[in-house]
């Protein structure tokens, strides 16, 4: 979950999110490189009275400042495309869970074996127990087995929503009349929080998502108890 004064991403809980973290470090390094170069040049320009007002042609510098940005763009694009294709790899999920966005809650359906479905509403602030997180807790969490590839099918019953869990690197739009798919693989047990990420009305900020990743045996017991 997010914490006060947070600057970077949340800790990664899936291999894809780890890749995204490292890619972000790589791209930020390039951004710092360009920004420091530009800042240095601006300060150079501001600290001299020397001028040159008769430039006729600048073939060499124009070549450099065309080729260099092209190389930088390629250095960004290649890792980016690598991760993009990695996200789309065929990974044979063991479980499929469907989630539907509503105004203003999520509903989940586990229909691989039996018909299990439930709604997931935010717990209002007045009803929170000590230690629980304001605007993030829900009554029925999405319990999933850890270290298992899960397919999420996401759609909406009314307006646009978006199902997001930052620590797993997931954000997928819930569009009425359309089924969007994403896969997730949590490497650690625990609770992972997310919030609706597409404006959907007055309670858009009050329809969070909580994933509870547990070992497979506990997931099986839980799903039987929920039937």
């Amino acid at each position, binding site marked *: 979950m997010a914490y006060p004064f947070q600057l970077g991403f949340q800790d990664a809980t899936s291999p894809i999110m780890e890749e995204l*973290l490292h890619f972000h*470090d790589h791209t930020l390094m390039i951004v710092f490189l360009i920004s420091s170069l530009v800042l240095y040049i601006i300060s150079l320009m501001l600290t001299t009275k020397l001028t040159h007002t008769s430039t006729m042609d600048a073939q060499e510098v124009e070549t450099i400042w065309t080729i260099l940005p092209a190389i930088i763009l390629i250095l960004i694009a290649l890792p980016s495309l690598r991760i993009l294709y990695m996200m789309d790899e065929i990974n044979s999920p063991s479980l499929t869970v469907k989630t539907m966005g509503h105004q203003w809650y999520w509903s989940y359906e586990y229909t691989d074996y039996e018909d299990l479905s439930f709604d997931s509403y935010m717990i209002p602030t007045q009803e929170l127990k000590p230690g629980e997180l304001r605007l993030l807790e829900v009554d029925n*969490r999405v319990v999933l087995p850890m270290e298992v590839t899960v397919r999420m099918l996401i759609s909406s019953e009314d307006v646009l929503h978006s199902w997001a869990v930052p620590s797993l690197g997931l954000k997928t739009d819930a569009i009425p009349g359309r089924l969007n798919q994403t896969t997730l693989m949590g490497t650690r047990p625990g609770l992972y929080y997310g919030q609706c990420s597409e404006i959907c009305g007055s309670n858009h900020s009050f329809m969070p998502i909580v994933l509870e990743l*547990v070992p497979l045996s506990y997931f099986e017991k*839980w799903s039987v108890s929920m039937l």
Partner: protein
Amino acid sequence: VQCIILHPHPPRLLAKRLRFHIVGAFAVSLGVAAFLKFAVAKPGKKAYADFYRNYDSMKDFEKMKKAGIFQSAK
């Protein structure tokens, strides 16, 4: 009498300054990038590798279960 007029060579002060500082600018920005790579990116990658090298997810789960945070595992 032929008179050769010698024109003074211009001192090219700006060009000298630019050459010196452009090299400096590239050196500074590459230094910044190298610093970020070795002080931020590499330690970050290492931190994840070290964490997962001897990670026991069941032990972690038992600790969390004892703390009572799960709905599905009391």
